[in-house]
Each structure stands twice: as structure tokens, then as C-alpha cells.
């Protein structure tokens, strides 16, 4: 039973914020910082979504004019017709925005910053100044990235994975590989710094600032997920940061980390020698694989947290969920080579990477079975939040089973770089993780703003999104099985032409589902100002965030120092008033595990 030191001993603590700048701009308050991350993710996700509309439209009308596109880029879309390189630029920015600024920001930095300290009973994060810096560095990274849209040569075209030598040789490699790629490298390097600062905070806070009685095992599953994610994140971003710097050096300082000798690009012999393109891939994926678990683990934690509340009973075993998340985190560092099965690395290595990759299925399956098994005999309440949480389970299964194929090198010979892979990662990251963000939003909005979101609009949003994302991404797997190669700006090969009807279906589904997200945006903004006033605990939930006012005061618990008596899973408890017992309630519970 680990007890934390009393919160009065907290270092670097700040007083109540004064003045507009301190309150809303350069705030030390983890709640403001969490909201700032959320707002940044919201802007990024809408930009990323619009980019995906442009991409999907171009795929079915490659020579079609898109009204207004020539104002965004005269060279990229002359007369409104998207050039092949501009498609790749939009694709690169789509991936970069979504993976970094949405999926790492929203479930982890936004909700984690806001709720981790509250859920463990702390007044703020351990290092509020580092915390503020982490957001603003991330914000500057975003601005640097977006600048790429407005420079003459445009955004980079090498994808969010930026493989060398395409990304490393400079402008000879093609339009978009001029300053756009440099800006990308600098932006991501800055993002790494922001993430590292944030992760340090999460870890120190979780270990040192828990309230009295808040043992590690009594922390909510969302807090566990944020904590484990922060641990993974520390090592992963610490590798991406130097990788990006080396890439920028190759481009600007004439080094050759990733460029071998003798390359003739655009009729010019490149003045480099001795580098290895595979080195970039190893460095990138050593970060890149844990990164996708950085995206999904907080989502699993948020969904578990909301599910327990929505089904009015504890999960079959919270401990198993915690240990499964830990093993996923640990295994995530052993599998990066599965992105490189046919990359030219030693084929024996490919086999070695496939075994831990297949092994990750075990904790993922365990978690899915625990969620499913917990539904048995439960009493499920359907709210927008719980619908998205249940939808997450469905999406996680769909996205996860395609992993069985991709984990095997022999099958990957056929499926690598096809739409099968694109379908797989969109389902787990682009849908499942986003569902968790939606669930978290609908669940925690009342606490963050003091107002309720419209449940009616939320349910409409859910149904269109649930059916719509299946319509978009399930067909990606069929395309992949037919051999449809990815990252093509249009389909001109003989064997791809019969697949056009599938692409048209997907584009229509994408446009409709995308449009439905404006219902969510409207709901968010309208409810912020006109929503019904929210009570302190609208969902009858047990964790500490529901013991404080909506919205919480600057120091969360006011002058109280909460004392914790139970874990957050005390639902359906016999003999309690109502069917739940809050974590800080001194009420004794029989047979408490």
C-alpha cells in the first residue's frame, strides 16, 4: 500500500491565476493546458479531415477541377486540378497532423493533462512550468508544420514516415522536397520536445502526488493508461528527436547518415556517401511502433473508465487490464521490424520480429475479452459516451484482426504497402482511438465546462459515425486483398481499374461521415455557451473528478485534501445508497477486493 506524501509538500506550486494572460494563455493550470491541447487537436483533426476529403475526391476524379484549390496552391493545383505531387503533399500533412497533433494530443495530452491530477487527488501536475512549456512548444511545432503549406515549394511529399533517401537528398528528389521537408523535420523535433516534457510530468505526478489512500491499484484505468503511455513515450520520442535532427543535417549540412554513394536523382549525382536508408527506417519505426500504442493505450484507458460507469458494475478484473496494458507497452518495443519485413533487412530478423508481434495479440485479446465478459450480467446505460465506448470495442476488434495477417512476414509479402495496411491502421487509430476521444468528450464535457452536451445530437453523431466509418474502412481491406497499392495519387494500372467502384463508394461514405462531424463540432460549441447546467456528478460516477465542482476551481479540490478509501469500480455494490460508492466515501463495503 504505497501512500503518497501530503500535497502540501508539492514543489513549484502556483497561486491562483491573475489576469487574462495567466488565466487563459500562458497558464500553469493543468486544466487550461489540457483544454489548450484539446483545442489544438480539434483544429488539427478538422484540417486533417478536409485534407482526406481532397485526397478521396482526387482519387475518383484525378483530372477533376476542385473549386478553390488553386488559391491554396497555384503550383500544386493549376486551374484547380491537383497535381500528383500535391496529392502526396496533402497525404503527408494528413498523416503528420493526425498521428502527431491529433492522436498523440487528444487522448493523451488533452484528457491526461486535465484529468490525471484530479483523478489521483492532486492540486496540479508536479512541474506546472514544464507543463506549460510542453503545450507551447507543441503549438509552435504545429505552426512550423503549417507554414509548409504557404511556401512556394509546398509541403513535403514523402509521407508521415519520411523514408530516406527521398526525404534526405533535398530538392532534387522532387517538388515538395525543398524547405517543406526541413520544416517537417523541425516541427516534429519540436513536437518530440513537447512530448518529452509532458511525459516527465505525467510520470512524476503519478508517482509522487497521489492523495492519501490513493494507492497505485486504486487509480482509475484512465490514469493507469496515461501513466503507462507516458513511460513508453519517454523512450520513443527520445529516439525520434535525434532521428529528425540527423535528417535535417543530411539535408542542410551535407552529412550522409541516410544517403549512400552513387545516387543519381534528377540527372544529378548526389554528393553523399556512406549512409544507410535502412537506418532511418529502424530509427523511425523504433519510435513509430510504440507511437501507435501511445495512441491506443489512453483510448483503452478512457474507454475502460467510461465503460465501468456505463455498465454499472466493475470490470471482471481491473488488475488484468492494468497488467495487459503494461505488457502491451513492454512488447511494443520489440516489434518495430514488422514495418520492415520486405525492406531489405535481414530476412531472419523479419522472422524474429514476427513472434513478439503475434504475441501482442494475447494481451489485446485478454483486454477485449474482459470488456466483453464484463458486459455479461451488467446493466448498460446508453449515453453518447457509452455508445462510443461500446463502439470502440467493435472497432478495436475489427482493426485488430487484420493485424493477424500483417504480423506474418509470408503474408506481408503480398499485403505490404496495400490498402489492407491502410485499412488496418485507420480502423485502430483513425476510428477506434477517435471513438475514445469522442466518448471522453461526451463524458467529461460537463465536468470541464459546467454544461451538458446535447444527448440527442450526440446519438445522431454516433450512429452516422459508427455506420459511416465501417462503410469507409472495411472496404479498404477488400481493396488490399485485391492488391491495391497505397500512396498512389491516382489509379492508372490495368489491375486497379476494376476497383474504382469500391473507391467511389468509399469517397461518398467519407464525405458523408465527415460532414456528420460538424454535428459534433456544433454540439461542442453550442453546449459550451447554451448547454443545460451540469450537476457535479451527472453520470453517477465514482472517481475523484466527480467530487469537485463543474467546472473545477483552479486548485481542483479547494482547501480539501481528499482521502481515498476505495478503488473507482464500486458499482452495483450491495447495501450502498444508490448502486455506487465514490472513491472518497468513508462508507465501508463488505467483501471489497
Amino acid at each position, binding site marked *: 500500500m504505497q501512500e503518497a506524501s501530503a500535497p502540501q509538500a508539492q514543489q513549484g506550486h502556483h497561486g491562483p491565476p491573475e489576469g487574462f494572460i495567466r488565466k487563459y494563455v500562458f497558464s500553469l493550470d493543468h486544466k487550461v493546458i489540457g483544454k489548450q491541447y484539446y483545442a489544438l487537436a480539434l483544429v488539427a483533426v478538422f484540417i486533417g479531415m478536409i485534407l482526406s476529403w481532397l485526397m478521396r475526391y482526387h482519387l475518383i476524379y484525378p483530372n477533376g477541377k476542385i473549386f478553390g484549390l488553386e488559391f491554396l496552391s497555384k503550383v500544386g493545383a493549376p486551374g484547380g486540378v491537383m497535381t500528383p505531387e500535391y496529392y502526396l503533399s496533402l497525404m503527408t500533412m494528413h498523416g503528420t497532423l493526425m498521428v502527431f497533433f491529433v492522436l498523440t494530443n487528444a487522448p493523451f495530452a488533452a484528457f491526461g493533462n486535465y484529468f490525471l491530477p484530479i483523478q489521483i487527488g492532486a492540486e496540479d501536475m508536479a512541474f506546472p512550468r514544464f507543463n506549460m512549456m510542453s503545450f507551447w512548444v507543441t503549438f509552435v511545432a504545429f505552426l512550423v508544420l503549417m507554414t509548409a503549406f504557404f511556401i512556394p515549394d509546398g509541403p513535403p511529399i514523402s509521407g508521415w514516415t519520411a523514408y530516406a533517401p527521398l526525404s534526405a537528398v533535398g530538392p532534387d528528389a522532387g517538388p515538395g522536397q525543398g524547405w517543406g521537408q526541413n520544416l517537417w523535420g523541425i516541427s516534429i523535433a519540436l513536437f518530440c520536445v513537447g512530448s518529452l516534457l509532458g511525459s516527465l510530468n505525467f510520470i512524476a505526478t503519478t508517482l509522487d502526488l497521489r492523495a492519501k489512500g490513493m494507492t497505485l491499484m486504486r487509480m482509475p484505468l484512465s490514469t493507469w493508461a496515461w501513466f503507462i503511455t507516458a513511460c513508453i513515450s519517454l523512450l520513443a520520442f527520445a529516439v525520434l528527436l535525434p532521428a529528425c535532427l540527423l535528417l535535417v543535417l543530411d539535408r542542410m549540412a551535407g552529412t550522409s547518415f541516410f544517403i549512400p554513394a552513387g545516387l*543519381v536523382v534528377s540527372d544529378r549525382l548526389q554528393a553523399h556517401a556512406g549512409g544507410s536508408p535502412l537506418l532511418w527506417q529502424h530509427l523511425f519505426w523504433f519510435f513509430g511502433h510504440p507511437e501507435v500504442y501511445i495512441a491506443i493505450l489512453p483510448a483503452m484507458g478512457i474507454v475502460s473508465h467510461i465503460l465501468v460507469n456505463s455498465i454499472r458494475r466493475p470490470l471482471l478484473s481491473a488488475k488484468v487490464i492494468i497488467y495487459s496494458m503494461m505488457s502491451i507497452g513492454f512488447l511494443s518495443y520489440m516489434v518495430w521490424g514488422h514495418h520492415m519485413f520486405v525492406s531489405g533487412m535481414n530476412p531472419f530478423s523479419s522472422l524474429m520480429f514476427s513472434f513478439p508481434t503475434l504475441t501482442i495479440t494475447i494481451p489485446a485479446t485478454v483486454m477485449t475479452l474482459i470488456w466483453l465478459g464484463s458486459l455479461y450480467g451488467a446493466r448498460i446505460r446508453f449515453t453518447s459516451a457509452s455508445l462510443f465506448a461500446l463502439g470502440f470495442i467493435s472497432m478495436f476488434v475489427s482493426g485488430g484482426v487484420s493485424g493477424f495477417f500483417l504480423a506474418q512476414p509470408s503474408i506481408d509479402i503480398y499485403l505490404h504497402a496495400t490498402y489492407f495496411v491502410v485499412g488496418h491502421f485507420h480502423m485502430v487509430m483513425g476510428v477506434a482511438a477517435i471513438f475514445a476521444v469522442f466518448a471522453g468528450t461526451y463524458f467529461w464535457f460537463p465536468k470541464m465546462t459546467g454544461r451538458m452536451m446535447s444527448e440527442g445530437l450526440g446519438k445522431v453523431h454516433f450512429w452516422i459515425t459508427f455506420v459511416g466509418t465501417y462503410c469507409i474502412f472495411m472496404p479498404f481491406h477488400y481493396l488490399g486483398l485485391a492488391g491495391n497499392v497505397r500512396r498512389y495519387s491516382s489509379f492508372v494500372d490495368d489491375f486497379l481499374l476494376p476497383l474504382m467502384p469500391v473507391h467511389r463508394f468509399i469517397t461518398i461514405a467519407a464525405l458523408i461521415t465527415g460532414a456528420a462531424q460538424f454535428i459534433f463540432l456544433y454540439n461542442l460549441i453550442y453546449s459550451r455557451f447554451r448547454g443545460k447546467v451540469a450537476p457535479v456528478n451527472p453520470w453517477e460516477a465514482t472517481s475523484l473528478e466527480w467530487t469537485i465542482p463543474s467546472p473545477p476551481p483552479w486548485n481542483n479540490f479547494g482547501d480539501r485534501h481528499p482521502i481515498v478509501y476505495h478503488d473507482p469500480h464500486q458499482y452495483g455494490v450491495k447495501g450502498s445508497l444508490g448502486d455506487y460508492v465514490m472513491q472518497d466515501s468513508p462508507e465501508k463495503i463488505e467483501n471489497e477486493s
Partner: protein
Amino acid sequence: MGKFFAVVLTIIALVSAVPIVRHTWWMPPDISTHGHAIDEQLTDTMAEAGFSFLAAQLLLAFFVWKFSERKDSGPIKSLPGGAKGLVIAALILVGTEMLALGVLGQKAWASVYFTPASPNALHVQAQAGQFAFYFRYPGADGKFGGLHPDKIDEGNQNYFGLDPANEVEARDDIVTGELAIPANREVLLLMHSKDVGHSFYVPELRMQQDFVPGLDLSVHFTATKVGRYEIVCTQLCGLGHYNMKAYLNVMAQDDFEKWLKQKASEQ
């Protein structure tokens, strides 16, 4: 709401399975000697993945239907066996399944990567460069001329940077834009990249391998069916990536020899 969720999810799960079961969009017929092992592996995995997918989705639908909160909801029950049972089941079932897939799957992988090319395989060099594939046959002397990047002159069809003025071996090299090979004869494809990363992919051949600048890579395979297939680039290489392809022409031995003679005369 619970019932609606269950119905919608069931429909989605069943509808999703239909194109898989009916092979509506599927792999093209295999034309290689090693491909059947890959196809079997994929079919086995599809059975397991398909079962897991349907079981999980239908179970989710069923539980959501049955256990919605109602006014007459009975006491909360727990799944028999609890977490322990599930963990053991997962470890054993999933563990064995994954081990089986991993262990069995390596046979297909080994047949491609751990078996050396046969000594009388046809040697062809493939060069990938933004944005086309070119192929080189060694000609009558059986030797390839050297590659000189500074001599590359694409406007005059010298894609490989050959130096026939100074190198005898280069004079009879045959450079083509199509990869023609005889059926039922093993081919050793020596892969060289001129500029950035590319990849060689022929779905029918069940073969995919990246070109890595600076690395001498090769693949070997035997095609069994005469026909014309597309080789497409699958490693993002720049703006023309979508239009980077060449044709693989699998021919009868006689036709191949005629073709090679014709190409030699055009050099």
C-alpha cells in the same frame, strides 16, 4: 437503444463477411511456384481472423441486447469463471494459435528467402529509378557491363550508365523496358536502385521486395503461367510513384529466345 445497437452491429458484421466469403475482391490466381504456401497461410489466417471477428462482434451485439439497463433489471451477475477463466482461455487459445501461425508461416517465408537461387537461374538485373523500371540481360557473353552513374543518359536510352565505348562486357548488354522471362525457369532478379527507395511487386507472382539504394538485393522466383502481368512500385518514391510500372511478360521458352534476339538487335 441497446437492441438497435445489436441489430446494426450484427448487420455490419455479417455484411462485412460477405465479400470475404465470396472472394468478391480477392487475390488474383497465383502464377508462381512458391505462392501456394502463402495462399494457404492467408486462407488459414482468414479462417481464424474471420472466426474471431464474427465471434467478438456477435457476442458484443448479444450482450448489449441482453444486458441493457431496464426497470426490471435483475441483480448484477458475473461471468462464470470470471477473469481468471478468460485469461487462461486467451493465453492457451490465442497463444497456441499465434504460435502455430508463426511457426507454420515461416515455411513460406523460408522458401522465398532462405533457399538460394538455383545455379542455372536466368540472371536479369532490374533497375528502379524515378519513375520507371528498366531491365538488363547480360547478352551473349553472359556478363554484365559495369554501372557508371556519371554516364547515365536517359534521353538516349542509357538508363544504366553503361560505357560500351570503353567496356567490352557492356556492348552486348540488352536493356529493355519490359521484363520478359521464360515460363517454368527460375529467374534471379538482381535489384538496383538508381536514386531513392522503390519496390518490386507483382501480385500474381506473390512477390514483393524493396529496392534499397546502396544495397545489392535480389529475389528469385519461377513463374508458371504464360501471360502479361504488371510490376508496380509500392515504395513511395516521389510524384510519379503512381505511374511507375513495367510489364512482366512470361513467355514460352522459344518465344522468349525470339524476343531476346529482337531486343539485342535494337540495342
